[in-house]
């Protein structure tokens, strides 16, 4: 069961993290930016579970961190969707460049 090296799991989660970061920087659509944040949170979750399994296989702390991160991500998505709907109502667009009243 342990024939997968820990480093390969870490490489996967690093790749997912930076794909999410790239998406967060390049997309101007606020929903896709939110999806990039979900990708970043998931890569962190993979790290927590991998370290829990490989370093402390008899404990469950990493799993609980992952579960609480999932819970917080759900709450965050709900609030963010409400903000997006409000933004669309007032600007008729979900482009982040259009909401620039606080910029200058």
């Amino acid at each position, binding site marked *: *069961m*342990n024939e*997968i*090296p*820990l*480093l*390969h*799991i*870490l*490489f*996967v989660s*690093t*790749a*997912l993290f*930076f*794909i*999410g*970061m*790239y*998406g967060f*920087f*390049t*997309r101007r*659509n606020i*929903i*896709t930016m939110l*999806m*990039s944040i*979900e*990708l970043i949170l*998931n890569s962190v979750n993979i790290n927590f*579970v991998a370290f*829990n*399994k*490989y*370093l*402390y*296989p*008899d404990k*469950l702390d990493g*799993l*609980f961190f*992952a*579960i*609480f991160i*999932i*819970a917080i*991500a*759900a*709450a965050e*998505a*709900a*609030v963010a*969707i*409400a*903000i997006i*709907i409000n933004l*669309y109502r007032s600007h008729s667009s979900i*482009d982040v*460049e259009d909401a620039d009243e606080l910029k200058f």
Partner: protein
Amino acid sequence: MVQYTFYFLSFLAILSALMVVVSKNPVHSVLYLIITFFAIAGHYVLMNAQFLAAVHIIVYAGAIMVLFLYVIMMLNLNADVEPHKSKWLKFAATITGGLLMIVLIGALRNVSENAAAGLPGNDIGLVKNLGRVLFNDYALPFEVSSILFLSAMVGAVMLGKKEIK
């Protein structure tokens, strides 16, 4: 066998994550993100976290992604809504993300693996063990997260309601 499954799932996760970021249509992004979540759930199963995999699929693929799809359909977004992005921004994002990733992978590469590979019980991630620890050691964070959900619910309702003039 486990190794092949792991590499297949990693390939699937990274490929569909790239498609999430690259594809122009937000609906396609959401569908690729669901594929990514299923691949990540497969990773959890391989790492003996079966309950976490189930929770992950239920919460992400079942709740959050449905919410996203609803909003995308309600706001009637499609590919030609996607705004123009400048080449410079893409270039800067590639440089930033790529350099940081190279640094991190370079730092990880030389780490000596002194992982305790000692007897991982296959049933450590099942709901019986998790529930016992959750309601003993993690009872306070559990209750605090319920307060978090309550405030998130109130906030979402307050933000989403129409402006009363």
